């Protein structure tokens, strides 16, 4: 690339990452996947329509494809790779997705898991409609959402808070 090269630092999953020689227009999604070795967030539409790239920035759930990477400096970014703590192989939500059949091709799964975590932090015992509205920004083409909703109920039943 022959354009002005950007250099900045992003804090992702608790660690600082230096970004060098980046093109200004790169989204956070691109930088996570292609520069920082974190391909867990997926690129399904690059328009914020599918939610496959959902991450949190300072605790707020957003689509990483719509975040200009260079503008995300001095924030705390959490991706799917950082969700489970160092001592847990996976979160209760992740486990519920697996046991309830909420995963088929899996492309939407990281974004969905992030959205469900965000929901349960805000509403620990959501109604069916509240769950549906909370994940309405995560498109899934395989499951028809049935087993995903069952997974959320399972996580709630286990008394999990996000």
């Amino acid at each position, binding site marked *: *690339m022959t354009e002005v090269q950007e250099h900045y630092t992003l804090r992702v999953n608790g660690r600082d990452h230096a970004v060098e020689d980046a093109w200004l227009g790169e989204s956070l999604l691109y930088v996570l996947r292609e520069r920082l070795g974190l391909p*867990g967030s*997926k690129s399904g539409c690059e328009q914020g329509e599918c939610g496959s790239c959902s991450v949190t920035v300072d605790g707020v759930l957003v689509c990483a494809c719509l975040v200009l990477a260079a503008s995300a400096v001095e924030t705390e970014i959490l991706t799917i790779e950082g969700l489970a703590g160092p001592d847990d192989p996976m979160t209760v939500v992740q486990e519920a997705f697996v046991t309830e059949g909420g995963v088929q091709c899996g*492309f939407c799964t990281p974004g969905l898991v992030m959205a469900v975590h965000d929901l349960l932090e805000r509403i620990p015992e959501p109604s069916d409609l509240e769950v549906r509205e909370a994940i309405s920004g995560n498109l899934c*083409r*395989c499951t028809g959402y049935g087993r995903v909703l069952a997974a959320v109920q399972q996580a709630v039943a286990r008394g999990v808070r996000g």
Partner: protein
Amino acid sequence: MTDTATRAPARDGIGASAVRPDGVAKTKGAFAFTSDLFAEGLLWGRTLRSPHASARIRSVDTEAARAIPGVAAVVTALDVPGLPTYGLDEADQPVFAIDVVRYAGEPIAAVAADHPETARRALEAIVVHYEVTDGVYDPEEAFDAPPIHPNGNVFRHVPIRKGDPDATGEVVVEGMYEVGMQDQAFMGPESGLAIPAEDGGVELYISTQWLHVDRDQVAACLDLPPEKVRLTLGGVGGAFGAREDVSLQVHVCLLALRTGRPVRMVYSREESFHGHVHRHPARIWMRHHAGADGRIVKLEARLLLDGGAYQSTSTHVISNAACFASGPYVVPNAVIDGYSVRTNNPPCGAMRGFGAVQACFAHEGQMDKLAAACGLEPVEVRLRNAMAHGDTLVTGQVVAGTLPTRECIEAAAALPLPPDPADDWLARPGGTGRTTDRSDVQRGLGWAVGLKNLMYAEGADDYSTASCRLEGGFAVITSAAAEVGQGFVTLAAQIGRTVLGIDDVTLGPAQTATIGSAGSTSASRQTWMSGGAVEAACVAVRAQVLAHVAASRGVPVAELALVDGRIASADGSVDVAVAEAAPGVVFEATEEFHHHRTHPLDAGGQGQAHVAFAVACHRAVVDVDAELGLVRVVQIATGQDVGKALNPLAVRGQIEGGIAQGVGLAVLEEIVLDKGRIRNPSFTDYLIPTALDMPEVVATLIEQPEPGAPFGAKGVGEAPTVSSHAAVVAAIRAATGLDLARCPVRPQDIALAPRVAG
């Protein structure tokens, strides 16, 4: 869901709702989709596509593009070393357009560069001079229009003549039905990583539905022997028919070979809409003759499917549509003509349901008309005509396997109806838009039943290959069956565990270099065909193990059994763990699994063309705001013929996912064309159901084991999509009193429909 399958005991064998082996990785974002794969020094590939649907190419100038720093290669049709075209049946589709463009989105050139933005700018720097020409956009015009392609404009005419063409019935109902162009819209866009190999060949990591057929087409286009084109299945983000045809495979390999570097191509969502085939839009005329009792005497039908610019699988889709125009009903006399034609619209091909979906919309609309004309309930008219084992299709084939049509209908009818909606905006049509108060809503209920064949038809030998390797109590199963999300990887391990009686069963990578073809992940065939191949390979290995132990212990083989991880004789003289039974010995078997032979249809559409069938019934409840034309699908109840549920949880996932696509086709999804150009190639405007659009699904599995099917199981992937859309539209008709002849139903179709007084 009313789950009529019994759960298997503890160990995750056949019949258990075993969890996916890749599920944990997927929830952690650790599962590698093809688009996640990385190679040192990789370049980014992008495709230049024609904005015109019909044009002559006067010139393509790539000089400026090649001069951009960071651009490693620019290729066009001139750079294709082998066959310039590819195709699943007929190689009529150019790798890059040569002289002529036949659809908007047709590839003209491809570039490889050091950054995706550089690649994009390189595309913009390619100068193409087009001379726009008149195109054909109405499939009716295709018959008489000048040939769009030397092969002509009619892909296939399927005539079906059964019984007496002049038979009549007291009751006659007729209709003209239209199905719009649906898109598979998988979540993971097309992606491939091609790495040039030292032997002059290429390694391709690819998301596809059929590795070997991709390999063969790539090899032919690159003028390489097949063994030098080695494909490995990467993680696939859904398929639903859109990955049967080649999309970027040849392009990315060509770029890799030209540059000598790894090249990755990942489509944007917009490019994805242009880069794969869609579901054939259809216009279908039907006329049913019946007795006053509602029993069908004759079906007349004309089906016209728009196949777009290139053939893909159009000859088979129309065959399906014609053969299943009669639906799961006994139709003694039939005059059916099916046509798939070429136009300058985007190419159409396989999508879940493959022709039966379109036919079902028409025949189910007809069945409701028949019910009304005979004064029967919709369920009753369907029960009176329902096909069963031993009945004859319009192709003259007798249904030799199970076909519990009646049971599926009765099961759906027995499922509880949904309650009245909660007093919440989100529970009403219009959702968060707050358009609709309770008094604005009418509820309606509708029915549809659909029939689908399993496996390929008309003489195709779509076999599958699998191998099993057992050493020290660990088994590795190898199959090239493309896992696209449906759960074949889960099932294969379940089969291995059941047959070998051990827990430690894993799957090896799916590659062309190490195993023969498994056939396509389509036609609801992998459970039967690749499940059958895996079973056969494991059975062979089990026989080897038992023979080995029998020989080494001096015991007759017939006295040994392999159960729960141990090999034991009835008298107890032999009792050893499989893991310890043959230290250092490797047991291996590779098996090819074929289904019984089928035959092409003759000139009258008669023949033993299909292997087996599956049926499903759907009952839809919708709430409609007729003044605004907004619909909320409240519940879909289904009874589905599954043979045997090998993994009830996975079956449920297929049913719910397939119904979601039916809901989409009924009220949301359509590729909108304007003179061949896609106007809505994005998720902003191609709307698939969100969690707020998806109804409750209640299901009963009808298990009548299919003779000849491995474990008695039928494929379950397509049946949920074949009739669910028709049930939803039927429900909207019931709620509104409107004769809706088209799907997807748009708000204006309801809100602005002329209302007949009285």
